């Protein structure tokens, strides 16, 4: 046997499955024998979590695109990538360059790729319709925290806090954060971990104070805590008059517990604030993030946005730097027929919110070209699907939640004729504008944080809580996302263990189940404004009364929690929705 047959090469890069951007190692072996490896990070040991391990599977994923799909004459044909590029370029030339062509780039691409695609849009396509897609909740949280001057905390900073205030379930979004938070909580008697989460998630299980408020009441409770603790900072005037007593009814939680949390914040020597909201868990994540960050700023502490996108911070800063338009603007223009062509890099828009609006708008386009590593739902309606390399096959700069920059390196080449986003853009540019160049140089200034607005102007209506629309209705609330790969296939698992992994399970309080006359029912039909879903019924007393808790991937991909486009910002909005449940009709 040749020794090179079993040669194993060890490579290291960064994991972009969440905003912690951990070090990741891979031992590249023949065929599908690659294994994860663990970079020597000293005592930190925050290497690869359950999500990061999935990289190994993606290295040899059977569905990876190695050529392009081109649609024509009612058929979809697999062709070489250069033929796919030519088909897209020909269509672009027919449509002509200008602002009727748009580009949407996935926020998990490296900063250089995002800046390069912005330049491609401006110089080659002669358009100002460049957009960066960041998960709506991540976008809102970054806008909220970016409006304050609160310091960004890393894991080491968190470990030395005496009071940590977490909103949502950050242990599920960023599992490696747990060690630092646990260290902080256990460092000294009296240290507090205050968790504001309507559901009992992983973080809440470790809390010293769990404020299980009504879904959507996170903002109003934070306002009371900020006001009572004297930590409202720039928002003092806007939050004036809110006390634990005045918000207790709205929050559905005892005033004494809210006051106790406020006293802990008041006495904090070092306050760490973590925002780990699930997509759609609350109607106004921007206000929640804004108040939380203002508290951190006022107390001289720091804020940690636990985001689902690896390079969300970098993408947000690049989008600010190049004055990118929100994806909602392109969606509206596509729906109205103003936008004729759309190039999408790395994002399956039909898998995200609000699915029905996207689907209707995209069907109006004369050209829809998408670049994806694995074909998605959008490929079915796209004129061309180009093979895209994944982040571990790309190079560039990423920024983690603490604002630290790091370089990712390519673990291996993209498969077949697949290419990176910049590679595909350059190939299209060579066809439609041969004289153009796409040399991108990012400066440090481009990646600096910019203030995203005036705090008081950005505060939403905190009292406008979503609630069941009528009697007999429930509030559908998504559980936090917790991607894992322990069963060998990436699952978007619910917080509560494997029972809900990948399966459409809805959890409801046993008393609600009994009251609704659905006790003993196996499957619910859940009806919302945007459609219906069939979900396996589970009674669970960890779910508050009046709430139907659903794994976030079920909630988001069904499009039920999509609430359209925010007219002011053009951002996509999600939030809890009112639903009615009935027993699934039995087949005849």
């Amino acid at each position: 046997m040749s020794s090179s047959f079993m040669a194993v090469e060890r490579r290291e890069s960064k994991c972009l499955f969440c905003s912690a951007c951990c070090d990741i190692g891979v031992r590249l072996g023949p065929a599908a024998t690659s294994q994860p490896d663990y970079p020597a990070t000293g005592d930190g040991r925050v290497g690869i979590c359950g999500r990061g391990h999935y990289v190994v599977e993606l290295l040899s994923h059977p569905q990876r695109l190695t050529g392009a799909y081109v649609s024509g004459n009612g058929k979809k044909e697999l062709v070489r990538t250069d033929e796919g590029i030519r088909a897209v370029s020909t269509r672009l030339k027919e449509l002509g360059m200008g602002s009727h062509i748009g580009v949407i780039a996935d926020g998990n691409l490296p900063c250089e790729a995002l800046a390069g695609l912005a330049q491609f849009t401006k110089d080659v396509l002669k358009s100002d319709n460049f957009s960066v897609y960041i998960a709506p909740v991540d976008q809102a949280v970054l806008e909220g925290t970016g409006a304050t001057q609160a310091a960004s905390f890393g894991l080491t900073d968190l470990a030395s806090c005496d009071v940590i205030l977490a909103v949502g379930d950050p242990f599920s979004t960023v599992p490696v954060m747990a060690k630092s938070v646990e260290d902080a909580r256990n460092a000294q008697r009296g240290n507090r971990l205050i968790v504001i989460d309507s559901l009992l998630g992983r973080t809440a299980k470790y809390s010293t104070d769990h404020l299980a408020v009504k879904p959507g009441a996170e903002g109003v409770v934070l306002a009371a805590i900020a006001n009572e603790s004297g930590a409202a900072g720039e928002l003092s005037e806007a939050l004036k008059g809110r006390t634990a007593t005045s918000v207790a009814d709205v929050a559905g939680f005892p005033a004494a517990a809210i006051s106790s949390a406020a006293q802990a914040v008041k006495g904090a020597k070092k306050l760490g604030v973590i925002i780990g909201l699930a997509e759609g868990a609350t109607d106004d994540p921007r206000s929640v993030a804004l108040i939380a960050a203002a508290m951190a700023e006022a107390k001289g502490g720091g804020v940690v946005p636990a985001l689902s996108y690896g390079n969300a911070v970098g993408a947000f800063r690049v989008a600010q730097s190049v004055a990118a338009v929100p994806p909602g603007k392109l969606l509206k223009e596509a729906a109205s027929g103003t936008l004729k062509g759309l190039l999408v890099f790395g994002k399956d828009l039909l898998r995200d919110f609000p699915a029905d609006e996207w689907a209707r708008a995209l069907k109006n386009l004369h050209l829809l070209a998408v670049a994806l590593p694995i074909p998605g739902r959008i490929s079915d309606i796209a004129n061309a699907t180009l093979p895209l390399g994944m982040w571990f096959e790309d190079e560039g700069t990423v920024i983690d939640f603490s604002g630290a920059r790091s370089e990712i390196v390519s673990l291996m080449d993209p498969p077949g004729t697949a290419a990176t986003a910049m590679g595909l853009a350059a190939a299209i540019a060579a066809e439609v504008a041969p004289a153009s160049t796409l040399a991108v140089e990012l400066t440090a200034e481009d990646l600096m944080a910019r203030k995203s607005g005036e705090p008081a102007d950005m505060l939403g209506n905190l009292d406008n809580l979503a609630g069941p629309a009528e009697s007999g209705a429930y509030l559908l609330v998504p559980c936090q996302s917790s991607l894992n790969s322990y069963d060998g296939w990436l699952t978007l698992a619910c917080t509560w263990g494997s029972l809900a992994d990948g399966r459409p399970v809805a959890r409801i309080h046993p008393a609600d189940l009994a009251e609704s006359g659905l006790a003993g029912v196996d499957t619910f039909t859940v009806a919302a404004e945007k459609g219906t879903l069939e979900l396996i019924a589970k009674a669970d007393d960890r779910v508050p009364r009046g709430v139907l808790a659903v794994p976030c991937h079920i909630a988001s991909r069904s499009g039920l929690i999509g609430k359209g486009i925010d007219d002011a910002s053009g951002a996509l909005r999600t939030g809890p929705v009112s639903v009615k449940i009935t027993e699934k009709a039995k087949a005849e």
Partner: protein
Amino acid sequence: MAETQEIKKKVICNIDRCIECKTCASACFYGHQLTPAVGYGEMPIVASPVICRQCEDAPCVAACPVDAMARDDQGVVHRKRFLCIGCTSCVYACPFGVIDRDLSFHTVGKCDLCRDRLSEGLEPRCVTSCPTNALSFAEYEEVEKDGLMVIGGRVAGQHPIKRR
């Protein structure tokens, strides 16, 4: 030939720190060519990893009719992949229920403490990858010195299930 001694170090889970993220299960899955050996105990309050205790007098070794279960030079009880016929005798023999059937390969999954890594002086994958340091690879005596009780191979506080 004298019989090899059991390995003194065990994988021990501190459920005060485990957040049920199942990273250990992922690490085991990919480290053992899709035949994982880390199981998960689902209980009303917690779900935590259940890992082979590497028994002193291992019933799985005695139960195996084809000598696929054996103790190696390092003292690790492991399964010889090509000898295993998937009869599941070891599954029934295991007093802790930590050996599981592998329905894909018609064999069983058995923790070998990542022998390939042990020989390089490294810890098992589940321990190295644990994001919260809930898992440790240590001797029971070391753990007891820290004032923690060892209950069924796991380290807990005053109550075996409920966290402190």
